[in-house]
């Protein structure tokens, strides 16, 4: 089987991807059913075969199961870190158990994927977050893990915000002075980038600071929708500040599958890379939906080895737009995220299949 590091993450066609990724997913189903009793019990209840012949047939767990149960496929002694979701929309946090191998694979895959866009040289990096975010070793949040993973892409890491999330103008101005006009890398969570960075710089009158900047941003749009800011407004306003040719990439990812994120292309579509795949399922029947049809998003990744999270039904709604034929040139399924499943429709845990 081809080693993942030899694969060009955004240029693998459907046929090649199936030959590579599907066996990986089947191996993981097998691995977790042997090492995680709870997962094995759930699988047994469904009567599904361990080896799927199509992506559609790979068994999946409901994302909320990770809030209800600690699902681990490694011995307690091998647990390296437990990630928790930020828990902004719910009181109960997801728990993701990582061993060293999975934690390391998350970073490597994320860097391989994003560096296929940025190139391998590390750019000066502005992080739209507070400095202390990654300091707390015991409770590593998903946000902290995200910042940490992305920081491998940069150098001279500069945190743009104070502890109270106000802009740290001193640090921002030093960064601007040092790197004005250069191809810097900026990363932050979508809402924070908008609220604590773009809006603030816009008000201050900053314009065309970094013409060749690359901005990656991630996280939900809910708070921005409340402010009537859509992706188009986000991009055009951010380009006023950074420069017309700044590359702005949203990405979609779950705390359950850190590393194999879905990155937005130059045409504004989120793509599954070679390392992940996506299926849209009809909300009522849970059958795979056709292109263009709205449904619940299922995500698959070859990374999770320490917990059975390689195939997860999320509580997000989306729509598949096509596969392998996006005019941006990247391969893979491309799709859009529409929003969250309304609370009233969230299925009970007995409904995981």
């Amino acid at each position, binding site marked *: 089987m081809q080693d993942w590091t030899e694969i060009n993450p955004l240029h693998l066609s459907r046929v090649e991807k199936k030959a590579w990724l599907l066996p990986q997913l089947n191996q993981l189903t097998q691995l977790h059913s042997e090492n995680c009793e709870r997962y094995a019990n759930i699988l047994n209840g469904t009567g599904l075969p361990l080896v799927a012949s199509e992506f559609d047939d790979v068994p999946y767990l409901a994302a909320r199961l990770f809030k209800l149960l600690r699902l681990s496929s490694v011995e307690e002694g091998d647990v*390296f870190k437990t990630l928790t979701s930020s828990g902004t929309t719910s009181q109960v946090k997801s728990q993701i158990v990582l061993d*060293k191998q999975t*934690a*390391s694979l998350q*970073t*490597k895959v994320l*860097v391989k994927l994003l*560096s296929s866009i940025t190139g*391998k*040289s*590390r750019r000066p990096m502005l992080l739209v977050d507070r400095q202390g975010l*990654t*300091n707390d*070793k015991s409770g590593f949040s998903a946000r902290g893990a995200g910042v*940490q993973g992305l*920081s*491998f*892409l940069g*150098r*001279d*890491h500069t945190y743009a915000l104070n502890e109270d999330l106000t802009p740290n103008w001193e640090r921002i101005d030093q960064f601007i002075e040092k790197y004005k006009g250069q191809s810097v890398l900026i990363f932050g969570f979508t809402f924070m980038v908008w609220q604590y960075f773009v809006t603030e710089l816009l008000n201050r009158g900053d314009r065309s600071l970094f013409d060749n900047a690359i901005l990656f941003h991630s996280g939900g749009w809910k708070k921005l929708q409340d402010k009537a800011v859509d992706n188009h407004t986000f991009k055009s306003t951010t380009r006023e500040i950074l420069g017309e040719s700044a590359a702005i990439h949203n990405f979609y990812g779950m705390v359950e599958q850190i590393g194999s994120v879905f990155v937005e292309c130059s045409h504004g579509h989120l793509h599954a890379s070679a390392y992940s795949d996506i299926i849209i399922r009809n909300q009522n029947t849970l059958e795979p939906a056709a292109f263009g049809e709205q449904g619940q998003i299922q995500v698959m990744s070859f990374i999770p080895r320490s917990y059975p999270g390689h195939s997860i039904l999320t509580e997000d709604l989306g729509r598949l737009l096509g596969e392998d034929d996006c005019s941006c040139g990247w391969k893979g399924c491309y799709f859009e995220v529409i929003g969250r499943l309304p609370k009233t429709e969230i299925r009970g845990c007995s409904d995981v299949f």
Partner: protein
Amino acid sequence: MNNTHKLVSAFESSLNIEAGLVVDSLEYNTIPQWDSVAHMVLIAGLEKEFGVLFDMDDIIEMSSVKIAKELLTKHGIEF
């Protein structure tokens, strides 16, 4: 200060550990002081000390003191 001393001192100050711990066999993520956060501090420390710039592959590959030396050698630093 020769290059080995420089290397040990960069590890010592970046990771905040005793110089005695900085031996070839010391590996990333095997002591709490050398985690992914400290790794970026270490990278910056080594770059400053030796005047080199590592690319993304280098910093992912740098999983032990021994490999750090090999990567620096690749950048023209002799040990």
